[in-house]
């Protein structure tokens, strides 16, 4: 059965219908209905993946139509828009509310994205479910210790993330007391980037382990190995396989943060009353086999928190000179971050910060 989108609107100039047919192209059939009651019957008959209901209908209030649809078993699996909203009513169950006057460019773009996402999930649901489960299983746990805590943020753009992260804290000894970790961002989202993300995760974990075991002497060697592995793994591909990465060690004995970036966004360091941004500049993994990576270090004196993030989060903070946010979409990428909070300890304690 061809996937379908249902438009319930009088739409006297067929503007919406034409616009939707243009953006859907060969992806879906656009079915139309000029009244609420007819729309409900067509919904039952055609089981569309997405429904757009106009608030202004000749017979039944559009908001009620959306709630009737969403209360059905089929409707719970359908994305429902209510457009031309002028005031909010109670019990509106539409997934998306579009106020009047409609910005058609944004509406069509949003519909297209929602439909693609729905279609992707619908056609590969078993595969996607397994992949989601695998990705969730690779996430770290929150850590809580006497001298630090680690938490994370993980929000895939579209069900599956091209980002990944991990951190761990081996039992400290007299000579070593280090938190190890990494955060990365592969190109794209969905199943294709999920595969690359899985490969990168395993490679980074493996290589960073060599550092923990003192086989590598610094973080730059970790990135160098991951970079070479990427070129070996994808040697037959014409497409560059770029990944932005940051690997780090928080050394509690030496009281320093060591890190090595590969196309990673800035690192945020919070002290008592200040927020310092450490800019990084390096080629991402997979850009060139000859890239030379560098390990850098920052003392942890008076540091309260360290934040690593992928650009999905760091870009959301960017403002222009007037202090206004410059992005034109609420969120347009996977969002991932690691938050390391350092605790003040009794100065007499040896491993305090």
């Amino acid at each position, binding site marked *: 059965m061809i996937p379908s989108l249902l438009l319930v609107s009088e739409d006297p100039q067929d503007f919406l219908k034409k616009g939707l047919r243009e953006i859907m192209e060969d992806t879906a059939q656009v079915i139309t209905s000029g009244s609420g009651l007819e729309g409900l019957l067509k919904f039952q008959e055609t089981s569309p993946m997405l429904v757009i209901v106009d608030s202004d209908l000749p017979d039944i209030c559009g908001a009620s139509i959306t709630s009737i649809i969403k209360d059905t078993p089929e409707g719970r699996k359908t994305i429902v828009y209510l457009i031309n909203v002028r005031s909010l009513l109670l019990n509106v169950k539409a997934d998306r509310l579009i106020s009047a006057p409609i910005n058609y460019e944004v509406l069509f773009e949003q519909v297209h994205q929602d439909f693609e996402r729905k279609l992707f999930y619908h056609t590969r649901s078993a595969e996607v479910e397994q992949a989601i489960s695998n990705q969730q299983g690779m996430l770290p746990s929150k850590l809580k210790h006497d001298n630090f805590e680690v938490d994370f943020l993980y929000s895939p753009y579209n069900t599956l993330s091209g980002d990944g992260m991990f951190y761990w804290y081996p039992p400290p000894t007299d000579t070593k007391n280090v938190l190890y970790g990494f955060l990365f961002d592969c190109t*794209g989202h969905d199943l294709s980037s999920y595969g690359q993300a899985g490969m990168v995760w395993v490679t980074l974990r493996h290589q960073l382990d060599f550092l923990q075991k003192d086989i590598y002497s610094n973080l730059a060697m970790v990135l160098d190995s991951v970079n070479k592995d990427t070129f070996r793994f994808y040697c037959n591909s014409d497409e560059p396989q770029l990944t932005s990465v940051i690997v780090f060690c928080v050394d509690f004995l030496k009281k320093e943060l060591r890190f090595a970036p590969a196309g*990673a966004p800035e690192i945020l360091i919070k002290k008592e009353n200040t927020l310092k941004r450490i800019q990084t500049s*390096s*080629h*991402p993994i997979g850009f060139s086999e000859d890239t030379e990576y560098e390990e850098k270090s920052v003392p942890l004196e008076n540091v309260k928190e360290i934040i690593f993030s992928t650009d999905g989060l760091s*870009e959301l903070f960017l403002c222009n000179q007037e202090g206004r946010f410059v992005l034109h979409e609420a969120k347009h990428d996977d969002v991932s971050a690691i938050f390391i909070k350092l605790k003040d300890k009794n100065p007499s304690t040896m491993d305090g910060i």
Partner: protein
Amino acid sequence: MKYVTVDGDTMILSVPGNYKFSITKAIDYEVQTAYQNGCTKAVIDFNDTTTMDSASLRQLTKIYRQVNKENFSAKNAKGLVLAVLKQNNLENWLR
């Protein structure tokens, strides 16, 4: 073509607004057409580009490799686009 113009042996790629994953396919098609029309050089004009993501960076890296670095350049990068280039140590693309 919407994103690529051809000037002799040079293609000029200009992407208004958000240069992101969803339009890379259309751009790829136009880039291939430019190669078929004899283009061996590429100039990326970021004048109207407000943001870019990893997918666009991958696409530009592919073009960079295909035309070779001496035949590749970029210009007019600012704001978020310039920040992305700096972050990835690609300011040398700008000439």
